[in-house]
Structure formats: structure tokens, C-alpha cells
């Protein structure tokens, strides 16, 4: 069976949902004839027609707003942000219109807003951001960030079927760099469920998205030193799978949180706080966060490399914590 890339997995997931549910449609910049800046929607215009694959003006706020409106009258829109950085332009529609709608007046907003996040490709400050924590203090939203092709497909399908607004952050570094065999049959990955990528006893790394692979690499390396790391891939960032987080913390008693968003105000704070409150008695060491420093994402390779968490950084921190 053929291997499927991460980007192709997303494309398949959308395609299948569009085939099986005529309420699903996609709108965004250059998603039609061009098939999207990263080709996620390639071939969709030809197959599904211009009514369901809509090239929009450069108007992120209106695109999200229009998706909300369409969802009110029975549609299931998928919005593509050309780069996820541009979601800042739709921040108001997302946090005020979409997120609060069900709570205020019972009108659900089943939309998906997706786009490429993350660094590693020298995109500079505006094409490399990880924006999840902009939205973490806004109840009503859901946020997912897959780290594998399997999850990418399963989560986009779950997101499309979800009754609430889901932000789907796909990591551009993974698009064509990872592939795997996917099941023939229709499957979803449920929103809100983390997964253990690697069992371990000595400490836990809680992470998600591209740096999950960094965590796994570091864990492999440390296994040789007899340090057995458990890697928990959150997959969903909002709402968090608190049970899974607490479980791994209670099991290994030591926790590293790893993410690609910058440190201060990143999602790691929320995760650490939950552990520090609810698994405090189990902790045998400080909760360590590994994340880029508090700067914009720099452009030049030596800077970006310094900025991004490297396998070495994780190994070092894990070694230190294991020895604590």
C-alpha cells in the first residue's frame, strides 16, 4: 500500500468529507484554480465545482465571517488561511462571533479554520508563527494540531463533523516530510483525546505538532542511556485532555512540556498549571518547559535554528530532569 504524506492526508480528509456531505465547502485565497498555496485543495475545484471551492478576495475577517453565516443556515464551511499567521486578521470574528455564538443564543457554528503553522523553513516572523495561545483563553473554540499523517486525516474529518468552531493548525514543516500508510476505511481521530506516542517510566514529555518528532528523537537517544521517556502527543490543545496529562504526570512523576510557540504565554503554562494543581503530590521534580525564547521568529538560518527547540535541547533538559 502507498505511503501518504501529511499534506495528502489532510487533502484526503477534506475530499472524503466533501464527497459524503454536500454541506461541506471550502473558501479561502487561491484555493480554487491554484489548489492552495501548499496544494491542500489541489484538484478540488475541478472535482467539486466553483460553488464549493471558492476563491475569495484577501479578506480574512470576511472569509471567517462568511463561514459563520453559512454555518447558521446549514452549511459546514472550511476556511483556509494561506498562512496561519493571517488568522490575526480574523481574530475578532473568531473570538467574538464564532466562539460566543452558541453560549449567547444557542446558535452553533460548525466551521473549520485551517492553515499552515510553524517554522523551520526560513519563513521569517510572518510565515512561521504558532498561534494557538492567542485563542486558548476563548471558551467556545476548539484547537487541534496533528503531528502525523494518520492524525492529520482523522482530525480534519473530526473537525469538519464537529458542531463547534475548530481551529486546525497543520505544520508546514511536516507537509511533505512525513508519510505513513493510512487505513483504507473511513476513520476519524476524536477531538479532545491525546495519545501516548511512546511509553516510558522516567519522565514524560507532553507536546504536540511538529516537535512531537523532536521529543521522540530525543527519547530514542536517551533510551540508550537507560532513560525511558513517555511522550504524550496532545493532538487537541483546546479543550485539553486533562486526564491524559495528569495520568502521565502521575505515572512518571516528572514532566517536560515542549512546544514550538514561544515560551511566555504559550500553551505550556496552562498544562503546567493543571499538573501543579492536580498532580502536585506526584511530582518528583520541577515542571520544565522547553520552547523558543520570547522573540518573533527570526529569518536567517543561524537565528531560526537557535530559536527552534532542537533535539539536543530536549536531551539535555531530560537528562537533567531525570537526574533530579
Amino acid at each position, binding site marked *: 500500500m502507498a505511503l501518504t504524506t501529511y499534506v495528502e492526508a489532510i487533502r484526503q480528509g477534506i475530499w472524503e468529507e466533501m464527497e459524503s456531505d454536500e454541506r461541506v*465547502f471550502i473558501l479561502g485565497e487561491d484555493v480554487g484554480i491554484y489548489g492552495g498555496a501548499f496544494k491542500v485543495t489541489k484538484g478540488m475545484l475541478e472535482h467539486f465545482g466553483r*460553488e*464549493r471551492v*471558492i476563491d*475569495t*478576495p484577501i*479578506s480574512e*475577517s*470576511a*472569509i*471567517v*465571517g*462568511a*463561514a*459563520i*453565516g*453559512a*454555518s*447558521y*443556515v*446549514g*452549511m459546514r*464551511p472550511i476556511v483556509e488561511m494561506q498562512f496561519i499567521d493571517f488568522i490575526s486578521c480574523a481574530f*475578532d*470574528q473568531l473570538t*467574538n*462571533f464564532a466562539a*460566543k*455564538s*452558541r*453560549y*449567547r*443564543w*444557542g*446558535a*452553533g457554528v460548525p466551521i473549520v479554520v485551517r492553515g499552515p503553522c510553524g517554522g523551520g523553513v526560513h519563513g521569517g516572523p510572518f510565515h512561521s508563527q504558532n498561534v494557538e495561545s492567542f485563542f486558548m483563553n476563548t*471558551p*467556545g473554540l*476548539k484547537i487541534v494540531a496533528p503531528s502525523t499523517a494518520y492524525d492529520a486525516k482523522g482530525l480534519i474529518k473530526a473537525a469538519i463533523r*464537529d*458542531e*463547534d468552531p475548530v481551529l486546525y493548525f497543520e505544520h508546514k514543516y511536516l507537509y511533505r516530510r512525513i508519510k505513513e500508510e493510512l487505513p483504507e476505511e473511513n476513520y476519524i481521530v476524536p477531538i479532545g483525546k491525546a495519545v501516548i506516542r511512546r511509553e516510558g517510566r522516567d519522565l514524560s514529555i507532553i507536546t504536540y505538532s511538529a516537535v512531537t518528532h523532536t521529543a521522540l528523537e530525543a527519547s530514542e537517544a536517551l533510551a540508550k542511556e537507560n532513560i525511558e521517556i513517555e511522550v504524550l502527543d496532545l493532538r487537541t490543545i483546546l*479543550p485539553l485532555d486533562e486526564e491524559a496529562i495528569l495520568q502521565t504526570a502521575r505515572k512518571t512523576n516528572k514532566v517536560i512540556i515542549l512546544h514550538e510557540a514561544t515560551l511566555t504565554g504559550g500553551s505550556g503554562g496552562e498544562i503546567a498549571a493543571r499538573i501543579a494543581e492536580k498532580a502536585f503530590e506526584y511530582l518528583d521534580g520541577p515542571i520544565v518547559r522547553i520552547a523558543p525564547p520570547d522573540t518573533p521568529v527570526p529569518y536567517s538560518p543561524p537565528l531560526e535554528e537557535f530559536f527552534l527547540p532542537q533535539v539536543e535541547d530536549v536531551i539535555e533538559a531530560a537528562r537533567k530532569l531525570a537526574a533530579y
Partner: protein
Amino acid sequence: MPKQKAAERKISKMKISKKTKKELLYYMKLTRSIEDRIERKLYRQGKIVGGVYVGRGQEAIGVGSAIHMEEDDIVAPTHRDMGIFLIRGISVRRIIAQYMGRKTGVTKGKDANMHMGDLNHNVIAFVSHLADNVPVAAGCALAFKMRGEKRVALCYNGDGAVSRGDWHEGVNLATVHKLPIVFFINNNAYAYSTPLNLQMAVENVADRAVAYAMPGEIVDGNDVLAVYEASERAIRRARQGEGPSLVEFKTFRMTGHSAHDDAGYVPRELFEEWQKRDPIPKLETFMKKEGEITQEEIDNMQKEIEETIDDAVQWAENSPFPDPEDTLKGVYYEE
């Protein structure tokens, strides 16, 4: 490509049936009376939760336009459009309960006064952030068009909201795709304390229609029959697949911005001048002259309205406040 200059104001007495006129009068009076009750009685009695915004003097706009809606059309009103909720059949009881923060209110106590919405009545709840409703209404229209339905979306805003980026983005999207939508503007000369000349360099909001290649019309917003007629044209146009229109209603806010604002920044003469153009007496006088209504009928109508409101106030006051634990409900979908 339609590039006509914004049309001149026109007042029309065209063949609008007596029945329709009565209906228009009724809804305008009901709107006025509910808002008077809320602002001048209940608010002062401390029975209203939060601030109060009314559309006094502007009743013709929401009433004369939304009256054309088919059942499955959708509307996104703004904060001076009480009449629209009434026309859409949201009950006076639920509205008063809404303003009192009761569980029986339209939003069950979750949101404030005119932030009412109910998809069963095809009314989209207003969010405070002005003009956010423009892209949203356009999205409804997009779905209608995509599915080949003959439904239209109506979107209301004040003159001030037109400065927001979302207004531009939403209108642009709608015109590019020739969506079945009408953009109604109540131009009441002020955005809070800010006069028109500090909001835009053009004289009329309708002057902006050209920038989107759609028709822009200027209408006397205090003449409900003119409102009725112009709205009918724009809505018909949208329904027939000819795309969006912008209809600007010239009117005046006969109050402060909200109940706590005495509008000290508005020259008093303006109030006096516009008082003479109050849309309700205007229609009454016209109908009486045409022999379409008597003063007695008008009085009875008013009496009926007061009774409806009395009943609603009583019902609302007897309604419970929400349970504190309701706070936690309804953020996400629950099976």
C-alpha cells in the same frame, strides 16, 4: 456595471394597501412603545439590567424594510432595530424578559438587551463589535446562492459602522459574488458623539456603493412608505439574482447614544427640526387624510399595544432569573 450616482430622495405614495399601512403603523407604534416603556419606565425603576439603546425616531427603517421578508429570509439587525425583532415574530414577552435578564428572555440571560437572536425566527444576534454582522450576513447569502435558493439576507448597520474594515470586506465579498443581500444603513447623523464629517469624507453612505459596483439609494428614513418602497426594490433585486444593493435611510437619533447620554453635543435645533418629521405622526396624518384610519382606531391600536406590553412586563417580572449554574451551560455542543 451600475455606476449611477446615489439617487435623490424620493417620497412615494405608491399603491401600498391600507392593510399594509396599518401594519406598518402598528409595528412602528409597538416599537416606540416598547422602547419607551423600557427606557423611560423600567430602566428608571431599576428593572433593566445594563445599558439601554433605543431607536426612537428611527422606527420606520426596521419596520418598513423587514416587513418584506419571506419566512425563510434571514436578517442581521443592529442595536436600533427593535422593530425587526417584532416583525420576525419574537414575542414582546421574551423581549421584555431579555431586557430584565430573565431566564425566559431571548438569550436566557446570557447576553444583553438588544443582543437578541433566534434562528427559529431567522434573526442573527447582534454582537457589539460593529459591522461584524456584514460578513456573517454575506455568508448566509452565499449559502443561499450556492444552493440555488431564492432566499435573501438583510443586513443593518448605522453610519458609524461603515468605517469598520469588516464592513468593507463583507460588502466587497458580497458584490464580487453577486450575493442575494441588501445592506441597509440607518444614517442618523451621529455615531455616539461623533458627527458624520468626522466619520467619512463623503456626504452620504450611499456614495460608497459605487466602490462596489452596486446600486446605492438614499431614502427618507422617516417616511415609512418611502422606506417600504425602496426596500421592496432592493430586496426584489437581490431575490432575482441581481446582487446586492446599498440603501441609506436618512434619519436622526432622537435620544442620546444610550440612556445615560444626554446628547449635549447635539445642537438642540436639530432635535426640534427632526421632531417635526417623526415617522409615526407622519404616517398617521397621511392615513387620516386619505381616510384610511380614524383617530379612534389609532387610539385603540395604542391601547392594545399598551396592554400587550403590560402583559409582557408582568410576565417578565414573574419570570425567574437564570440559575447561577446556567453560567456553565452551552459553551460547546452537548448531545
